[in-house]
């Protein structure tokens, strides 16, 4: 408490703290992507997130150490209005959809719009189409390939995360034949990629289950973020931008902490 605080701050390995938020419809695999990235693990039966989970991961990019502070938000509709507090002051966002659910891409687009309108103007946004393992051909199949009900009748945004049907669907390896796998795909790579390009987003197709593409998401984000700028604008180990606002930010408005759209810069960068 009385120790000089300045000295250790200049150590070369001082990590750059990057606040990153995951957004997307329920059950698209946000938590699984984070789990893969942070613990290199996968759980088929991931429980739904309440509010938002918080994880950190340190990575090295060239000579810099990056500490991702990851807010993995709940996709459920009832937590929808909580999301601004997670993306405020975030330097990066990963918007996740499910390649087997076209509705989830539409939901992702509304997230992108909201971010571009209300989040930090310099925020780096990555669009990630998850669950590509479900649409990849798989070698060993012992199961007839029927498109499961989960893919077809789950179009409206439901409130569920890993429902039993979805879990069955996530066991994509067993789905088998190429044709059947491809038929599960509801969002083509081209369509999503084009949208991402239009809106200036990074784009990836990922599988939290196999790990495909997951690290790349975070790598490309790390490359695109102005790390030096963040480093310069934060003070000391405890001073990441997102954190500095920890006390000042939400408390600042007193009774009416401002999550209002009206107050934020209206700025529709994306026409989609």
């Amino acid at each position, binding site marked *: *408490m009385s120790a000089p605080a300045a000295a250790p701050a200049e150590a070369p390995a001082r990590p750059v703290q990057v606040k990153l938020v995951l957004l997307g419809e329920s059950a698209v695999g946000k938590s699984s992507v984070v789990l893969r990235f942070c*613990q*290199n693990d996968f759980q088929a039966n*991931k*429980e*739904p997130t309440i*509010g*938002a*989970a*918080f*994880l*950190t*991961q340190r*990575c*090295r*990019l*060239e000579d810099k150490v990056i500490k991702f*502070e990851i807010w993995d938000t709940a996709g459920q509709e*009832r*937590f929808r*209005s*909580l999301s601004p*507090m*997670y*993306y405020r*002051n975030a330097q990066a966002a990963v918007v996740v959809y499910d390649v087997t659910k076209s509705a989830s891409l539409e939901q992702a687009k509304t997230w992108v719009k909201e971010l571009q309108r209300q*989040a*930090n*103007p310099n925020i780096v946004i990555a669009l990630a189409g998850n669950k590509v393992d479900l649409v990849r051909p798989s070698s060993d199949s012992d199961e007839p390939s029927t498109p499961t009900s989960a893919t077809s009748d789950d179009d409206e945004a439901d*409130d*569920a*995360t890993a429902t039993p049907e979805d879990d069955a669907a996530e066991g994509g390896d067993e789905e088998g034949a190429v044709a059947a796998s491809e038929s599960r795909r509801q969002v083509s790579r081209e369509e999503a990629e084009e949208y991402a390009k239009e809106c200036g987003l990074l784009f990836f197709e990922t599988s939290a289950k196999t790990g495909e593409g997951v690290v790349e998401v*975070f*790598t*490309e984000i790390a490359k695109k973020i102005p790390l030096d700028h963040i480093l310069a604008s934060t*003070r*000391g*180990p405890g*001073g*990441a931008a*997102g*954190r*500095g*606002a*920890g*006390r*000042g*930010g*939400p*408390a*600042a408005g*007193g*009774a009416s*902490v*401002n*999550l*209002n759209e009206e*107050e*934020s*810069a209206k700025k529709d960068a994306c026409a989609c």
Partner: protein
Amino acid sequence: MNGDLGSVPSSALDYAYNPPAPSPPPPPAPAAHPASTTTNSLKLDTTQATLSPTAAAATGAADEMDQAVSDRLRRWIICFALVEFDLDTGPLLTTLYPAPPSSLPFPPSLQQNIAFSSLPEGDLPTAGAHAYTWRIPIPKPTGEKGKEREVAEESGEEWRKGDGCLHGFVWFVQEKNPALRRGYSQRSLVLITHLPSLPGLFSSVLSILGPMHFKHQQSSSSGSSPVSTRSGVGNGGEAAGAMGGMVEAASYNISSWPDLHPGTTLDLPFLGTVLSVEIPLGSQPQWPLPPPNAGTGKIKIQRGGVGGAASPSLSAVAPVIPASLPPTPLSLLLSPSPPSLSRSNSLSTSSSSSRLGPNISFAKLLLLWELILLGEPILVVSGNPREGGEVVEWLRGLIRPILFAGDYRPYFHIHDSDFARLTGGSKPPPATLLSTTNPLILSTCSKTYPHILRLHVGATESPGVTRGLASTRKRHVRVDKSVRREVEEKEGRGDYLAADALILQHLARLTEMFLAPLNRYFGTLPSSDTSLSSPPSSRSFTPSAFLTSLRQHGSSLPLRPSAPSLSSPSTSSLERFYLKFLQSPNFASWLHERMDRAGEQVREGYLRRLEGGDLREWMFGIGGEEGREEGEVEELVGRLEREAAISDRLLLSSNSLPSSPSVSSLASPGVNGNTAERGERLRNQAARLRSLRDESRGAGSGRSEGTGSSSDES
């Protein structure tokens, strides 16, 4: 893609693979959902549209939370509460989330006290939000408490580690609502914790959660009144119980926090921000840290995004939150005319801008330190529950590392169950520290409370009444002029954090100087004997012997010269000062803590002797010609076995309870490292002693040395 990144081929980013700190809450067993029908488990399957907001009845049963999650939550807080003003019944506690543990029921009297404590009285502006705190003793269980074994309590629930009180952090909102009869709705969200020493942390938490909660609740219930939210059966997935998703999300965040480790700085993720919180070590004093790289570093102002109000502010300058300090600087609260109090982050927006402070000078602050130290009852009168409560919180912390032992109430009201006890009678209990906004309490107490600190003067009061400290007591300690000059200079520049740091460091020095003679005397007390047979006993602190020691060695506490006392001419003012302290509850708390520490050391030494002592020597004497009574031997065998069992249990509880160190108890030296094998060693000793006993029985008079194997230990 891997191109210019690190050298690991498979993954482009070079993982440091630290276990993520803090780890996410342990996932409930997959089997527990989604089809679970037990009431105990959280209804995670939200496809069922029956998330039953109605469960939140006045009985306090909100949606149940997964046991593992609520256990982790309880390391930090007990629950959240919703209180609203019901036009027919008055303040009403409507919801507790999660339901309190069965060992800590909230009887109706406690619920009522919480309800009344959470809707402030007094002359508050008609609309807006107010944050403040209260403290209410946990009612004693009426039944027979039973004999407590030494360790039984150790493994008890988290809330037992508190100070026997509930600490409420209130976010009170008063809004115009023409739909209601009185035209206003009055509601509070309350964070209830058992931890007494973290007001800085919990104030920060609530200042984030409070506004979000009410905003979210409003939007998710489509602007309807709270009552309809409660009974909105059809809301389905819209809100999880009357609490709304915000409190639920907050609870899950808190349950994912790391354990409370005294003496460390913890990063606590909370609703989208990471709070860096410095947890004090035991009752050690804290003061605000100077902002790192002060002068060069610019405060980052977020632009364009949400929360446009983010601006350089008192709290933004100090990103690390000292957990034990109230959010508003002491020097700001006590200054003559707080310049920007109404606009500061730390105070609610409601403070009128024309507010004047109590104008407590540095010298008066020293007097306040003395009054607190000596256990004098003080009444704080405030126009605003927050300011008064924060002053109370500051005052009781001024004598750290001495733990203030009196009853303190940051927000005291006439409906409190202790109202008569604390305000009635001719003399208040010693070391009582009340803050009130109610003129009735002021008039009740103005004759009986010897010291009244007025932060506020009501409009209807007589013109002669002024703000400040009303006390007949004269200050004993001398003012250090250079410190005073520095403090005043910082205050003059509006640098209240720096002023606070100076003040608190100075008072910590004074407290240490004050304690030095007591510590010196304590060190001379004889420790108990070193025999294996007798466990350590407590020491006796005799005031007269202490005074002799004090006379002999003196004290470095800088006192003002004073006239000799006429009533007791033989004692000096220094001695009277110490005698007064010895009669105060604070002395008892200091002595208790000191004894605990010494006792731990003594006990540790005793256990070492037990586990490593030469039993053969104890049994037969150095020359091997002595003997022990059979009963004596049995007793020692029994003690060894008991101590072994206790060691096992200590080990178990320190492993299974992730948060064994609590703020109130410093990590005891016995509960780590070598404790692991202590139980084993003690059991071995017991076995050895038994075989020695058998040996002595069997051998009769001829004690042979020939049993060999067991005798080669020294």
